[in-house]
């Protein structure tokens, strides 16, 4: 055996489809196209970079995909930074008065275009923005907005007439410090959405220090360990428009971290939502719901805190969903280049690190992932993985020429649990290098193929339309709670389609990075034109069963009264 053959024989491990095979398959892969110009969305997330390398500059911002006016079409909300001085004078706050720094709300006109309705809606924001969460916290049928900031956060109540009211003070959810991702979740299943907010670290302009070599151009954004960890916030919804800060009482606020991402699901299938927090360079956290308003942090015990070598990584965006269709929600967490994106497979409540086996580790080791989600973009019945990328350091190429600040998007096709990189085969727009941050996922044009909206730092946001066209079928399930919270957030859905393929979904707007996704639960059905069985376990405990559902529709399901099963 010659030397090359020997090297190759050492590396000859089972892989997915060959390149030629992939190319052939590409003929049937849906293509993403850049729909930004036609959309008339001209948003740019302005981080206001300074020579001081204030860490907040490189961290925003989020996107929300939600239907604020109830017309059945997903609208978009972008979070923006604010103007910073270089350096910031003592006690001066970031300035958001310039419209370039406003957060923006865009109304979906239903024809591929959007209209900026920010001023009318009154959601420009204040302070230096980071992320956004959406949910109908008062069960009035209109989706509300929660904006996280460096500084006080904002709760915007949706008035149902195209306008919002800042009710932060009345609701008591302003918080403080540096908030990052947030989510609405009815953790105590009382029918009202509560609010959980991750905070990144204890940082302020006055605490800023020099990090990196003291050479021109080399100053960098600091490693989080340069600053103290922060505690997360938990606000319990009192059902009267106010919330109570139960951060400490819940147990979540007693375990600090460098929180950047948040998602929830019921990892042990006990019917109660558990909270996942992706932390930067300290152990990931999983808060197990003890069903009495309290949580216990169990990530280490269940194998979710570290990678397979017991090492931390730079957890950023995250998702908590079932990629292998076994009914147990898995976890994916983005990380920085020279690490690997982490994929944890849920084996009946215990997690196994499978970044290596799934192919994700090999593909992601040179990338940095922020907003991400397991989405079945090609409707074949397997959730794929989309990751928006870009390094945290805008000067990373000086110290590491192989690494780039601007990176292309990553799209990985799920082939029964093994991921294959199909980015280059899925539309030129994915190959454009960007400093991507927050990403919202959902169906902008209600065609059954999930679209993607990416917020880019100091560059225009991008609307990625999924062209579909492969003939696969789909179902979108829009839950309306009655006993449960009106959004049905926290409902668990099981679908069995004609061929017998079984899939599981979960109603949530959380996940990705600092962003909020389309609440409707998407199922790709492959060639199946019917769903034989659809079961919903509502947060109230009510079970609902529907049969013989035709594919290719948006199915609105109202929670039945308690007596009916």
């Amino acid at each position, binding site marked *: 055996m010659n*030397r090359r053959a*020997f*090297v*190759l024989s*050492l*590396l*000859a*491990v*089972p892989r997915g489809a060959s390149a030629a095979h992939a190319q052939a398959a590409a003929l049937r892969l849906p293509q993403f196209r850049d729909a930004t110009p036609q959309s008339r969305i001209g948003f740019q997330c302005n981080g206001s970079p300074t020579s001081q390398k204030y860490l907040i500059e490189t961290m925003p911002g989020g996107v929300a995909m939600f239907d604020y006016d109830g017309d059945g079409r997903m609208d978009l909300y972008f979070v923006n930074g604010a103007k910073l001085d270089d350096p910031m004078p003592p006690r001066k706050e970031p300035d958001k008065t310039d419209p370039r720094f406003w957060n923006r709300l865009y109304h979906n006109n239903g024809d591929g275009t959007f209209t900026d309705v920010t001023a009318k809606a009154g959601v420009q924001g204040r302070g230096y923005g980071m992320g956004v969460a959406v949910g109908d916290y008062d069960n009035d049928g209109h989706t509300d907005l929660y904006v996280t900031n460096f500084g006080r956060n904002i709760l915007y109540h949706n008035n149902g007439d195209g306008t919002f009211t800042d009710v932060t003070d009345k609701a008591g959810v302003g918080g403080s410090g540096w908030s990052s991702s947030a989510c609405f979740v009815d953790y105590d299943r009382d029918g009202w959405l509560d609010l959980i907010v991750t905070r990144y670290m204890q940082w302020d302009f006055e605490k800023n220090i020099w990090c990196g070599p003291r050479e021109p151009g080399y100053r960098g954004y600091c*490693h989080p*360990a340069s600053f103290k960890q922060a505690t997360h916030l938990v606000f319990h919804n009192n059902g009267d428009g106010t919330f109570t800060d139960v951060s400490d009482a819940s147990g979540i606020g007693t375990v600090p971290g460098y929180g950047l991402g948040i998602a929830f699901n019921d990892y042990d299938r006990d019917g109660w939502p558990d909270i996942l927090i992706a932390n930067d*360079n300290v152990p990931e956290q999983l808060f197990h719901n003890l069903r009495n308003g309290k949580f216990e942090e169990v990530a*280490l*015990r269940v*194998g979710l805190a*570290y990678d*397979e*070598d*017991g*090492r*931390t*990584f*730079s957890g950023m965006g995250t998702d908590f969903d079932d990629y292998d269709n076994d009914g147990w929600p898995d976890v994916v967490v983005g990380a*920085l280049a*020279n*690490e690997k994106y982490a994929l944890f497979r849920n084996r009946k409540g*215990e997690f196994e690190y499978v970044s*290596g*086996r799934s192919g994700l*580790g*090999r593909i992601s*080791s*040179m990338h940095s992932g922020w907003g991400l989600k397991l989405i079945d973009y090609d409707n074949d019945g397997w959730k794929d993985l989309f990751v928006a990328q870009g390094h945290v350091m805008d000067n990373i190429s000086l*110290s*590491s*020429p*192989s690494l780039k600040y601007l990176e292309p998007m990553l799209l990985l096709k799920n082939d029964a649990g093994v991921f294959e990189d199909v980015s280059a085969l899925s539309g030129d727009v994915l190959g454009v290098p960007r400093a991507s941050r927050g990403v919202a996922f959902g169906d902008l044009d209600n065609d059954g193929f999930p679209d993607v909206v990416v917020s880019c730092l100091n560059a225009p946001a991008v609307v990625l339309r999924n062209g579909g066209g492969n003939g696969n079928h789909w179902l979108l399930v829009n839950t309306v709670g009655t006993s449960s919270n009106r959004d049905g957030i926290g409902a668990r859905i099981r679908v069995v389609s004609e061929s017998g393929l079984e899939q599981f979904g979960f109603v949530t707007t959380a996940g990705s990075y600092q962003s909020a996704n389309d609440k409707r639960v998407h199922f790709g059905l492959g060639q199946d034109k019917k769903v034989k069985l659809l079961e919903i376990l509502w947060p109230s405990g009510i079970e609902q069963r529907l049969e013989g559902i035709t594919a290719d529709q948006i199915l609105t399901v109202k929670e039945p009264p308690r007596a009916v099963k």
Partner: protein
Amino acid sequence: MRLFQSFVAFLGGLCTVAALHAQSATPPLVGVACNLLVSEDERHEGLNTLHAGKYAAAERAFQNAFDACPSQHSILLDLSRAELQAKTLSEAIRSAQRFLELEPNSIDGRIVLANAFFMAQRPQDALRESEAVLRQEPALAVALKLKGNVQYLTGDLDGALATFVTLLDKHPEDEEGPYMLGRIYYQEKRIDHATGQFQRVLKLNPKSYKAYDNLGLCYQSLGDTELATRYFLTAIKLVDKDHPEYDWAYANLASLLLDAGDAEKAFGFASKAATRNPNSARNFYIGGKALSKLGKHELSANWLERSASLDSKYPEPLYLLSRVYSQLGQKEKAKEALERFEVVKKDAPRERR
């Protein structure tokens, strides 16, 4: 100290470097009882036995040589070196200090002492002594290397970087300069820069197996698995017969193969690494990890226990042990391993990025 221990092994011991520098003899002083003939004979015997690897015999011979002629101060340095080789580190330090009491301005003596402190895992003392030498001779290669290595091992990468840049500047033909710069850049995850330095080493010494080995690590980090494998295999070819003590390339290739999903081949290379160096906790960890992936959980637990016993401050095997014991249904052992992991992890250095 895990890093320290493994790195001392990795360098092959800096004492040989110091030995190259210090070979001077001190003339006998008038008025001191001295049987020079006996002393020279014993010293000669000491050098021979030292060369033959009979360290205890060498120690005795040098001691006899010094007793026969105490005015021959430099014998104390030979004695210190023999004690270092015999791993009687306290004695080595004491002998070097005795020499310096007699010859306080001796650069050779201070280097031997610094080296002894280094081997005895007293980095601050080693740093102090090497800096004392550098105040007298700012460009002395052996002192720069000692200082830089101490800085590297104590986590002062900026300091180590400056020291090895000086070494490279003053001694561009010395391969240790670019080699250590490569190591530092690799630690800092500046992989491209590290790659450049290791390639520089190969220009100076085309048979530098350590450079090949490290290039393998670099290309693995850069995602080029095929090239990384080639470099590891080249390193293995170079060390296979000529450097039976060098195990790193085997372990590194095993680790790469594990990442590539081939646990069976990975275990083969990990076994070779462990055979070469049965005192390496990492070798047994990689072997145990491969066995775990092969589903051989009981064997895996044995390897991981061995790894943990070889280095009580190494968190990785403990974390995997807890998972393996869970797989075996041994909940108590799993819990215990996880508790041990938590304790060790608290003191472990944080991951760089």
